[in-house]
């Protein structure tokens, strides 16, 4: 436990001594802010137009529509930025030779991996903070204020999705010494996981169903609608466990190959 805490703390600190973290944070703040503005203006405009559209007009739930679109955009931005958070995780340790320190210290693979994983998830939470401020505006200026629970469910979805993608990124990073290679391959894998259901036909064969099930985005959609379904939580959690387990195997095999 102490080892795990020490490793987590070190990883967190190392995020903030490297420029990558600041760049990722700044880009994420800027892009999410911009998209939030666009989405909000779009739906407000729509709502206003409907109000003056005549007797057939229907009321629009602007806050929940904004949230849903925003969470959708959020996932796409994560797709681009997360490889930059994970690329160095193991590749850089190998390149700098510091993996030799970790491997010869009385710590287990699990402690090293979980330390890095926890630190990255905490970093993601920090990254989400300004997005929380943006979306928090919806609660202040909507009348009546939207219910809180769909909002929290959406946030949980974004965190689970990020954590699942991080575990993939760790695995890829543990395979190479080169950060750029790690980032490029991670990005490629993300995209495949994103659109894997596109290759599934409309029929309900086992293959098609499996492909649809594997798409990380499909499982995210219910969260954005505020629907909390345990099958999606189980999917993401098993995804994370698998990713971290593969990372551990890859670290072990690197030892045997050396």
């Amino acid at each position, binding site marked *: 436990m*102490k*080892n795990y*805490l*020490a*490793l987590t*703390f*070190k990883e967190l*600190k*190392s995020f903030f*001594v*490297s420029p990558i973290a600041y760049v990722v944070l700044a880009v994420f703040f800027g892009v999410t802010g911009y998209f939030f503005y666009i989405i909000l203006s779009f739906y407000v405009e729509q709502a206003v137009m409907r109000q003056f559209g005549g007797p057939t007009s229907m009321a629009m739930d602007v806050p929940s529509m904004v949230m849903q679109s925003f969470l959708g955009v959020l996932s796409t931005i994560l797709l681009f930025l997360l490889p930059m958070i994970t690329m160095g995780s193991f590749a850089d340790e190998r390149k*700098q*030779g*510091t*993996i*030799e*320190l*970790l*491997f*010869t*210290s*009385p*710590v*287990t693979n699990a402690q090293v991996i979980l330390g890095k994983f926890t630190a990255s998830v905490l970093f993601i939470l920090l990254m989400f903070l300004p997005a929380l401020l943006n979306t928090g505006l919806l609660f202040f200026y909507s009348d009546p204020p939207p219910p809180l629970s769909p909002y929290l469910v959406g946030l949980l979805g974004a965190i689970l999705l990020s954590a699942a993608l991080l575990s993939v990124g760790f695995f890829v990073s543990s395979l190479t010494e080169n950060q750029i290679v790690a980032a490029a391959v991670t990005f490629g894998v993300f995209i495949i996981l994103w659109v894997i259901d596109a290759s599934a036909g409309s029929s309900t064969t086992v293959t098609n169903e499996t492909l649809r099930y594997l798409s990380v985005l499909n499982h995210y959609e219910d969260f954005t609608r505020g629907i909390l379904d345990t099958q999606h939580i189980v999917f993401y959690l098993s995804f994370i466990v698998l990713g971290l387990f593969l990372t551990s195997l890859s670290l072990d095999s690197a*030892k*045997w190959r*050396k």
Partner: protein
Amino acid sequence: MIRVENLTKTYGLTAAIQDVTFEVGKGEILGFLGPNGAGKTTTMRIIAGFFPATKGHAYVAGYDVLEKPLEAKRRIGYLPENPPLYSEMTVDGFLEFVARIKGVEWNQVRRRTQEVKEQCGLANHGRRLIKHLSKGYKQRVGLAQALIHEPEVLILDEPTVGLDPKQIIEVRELIKGLGGKHTVILSTHILPEVSMTCERVIIINNGRIVAVDTPENLTSQLAGGLRIEMEVTGSIDELVNQLRAMPGIRNVLAQPGVGDHYRVIVEAKGDQDLRNQLARMVVESGLELYELKRQAMTLEEIFLKLTTEEEAAA
């Protein structure tokens, strides 16, 4: 304290080390001497638990490093050839982190960091970023991280490489001071370094141990010259006596070989080539000579590959 049995490490078909077996007693400083690429680093990495051996076992304080890695690693301080440092951290931050993952009690971390910094001459460098330190200071930080959890066993891979002469002397003094309390394995390719710091030396070449001795004995052997191996038949007693009486010969060993053949190994002083004289002696004493050769790789030849000049180390 350290026991290594039949360690073999192969990369594909090539063997980095083969059947390396040795023991190091508590408080002893053992030198690991060999030319570059002899297998020193491989052996040390196996003992430190960085990677497993293909065959054989390594024990530290009675714990198999592969079976009980955590127990063994807790007792080892390891300085790899390239000190593993997080260049973006400060010296203090790095040492405190290492102390924690090496199992130092959290309320002792500060104290130990201060102590090793003083021990390694880093007292005024705590707040510097590691990437801004010179090679010599980085090496000291590497040494400090190896010492921080007061390990019983220290494994130091080329600890003086890249230091200036003054620093080399300081580091050697430091290592000498560690003996008694810590068990130390130290690798080097510099001959004078072992005679200055070590009580016992293992010479390794092409992945095999070729000699184990005290530095003094090795140096005197070095003063001696050739080893010549002969294969003969007949009664060898007289020949052996004759050889022993011959000037310029230090030692004669006779072992029974295949059938009625004998192997006679002659160690000559100096580097004069006695092969022609030996051949004549064997024939004149009525024995049959089947083979006569210089031993393929003598200690001297290995030593020749080592750096013998102090300057080259700086």
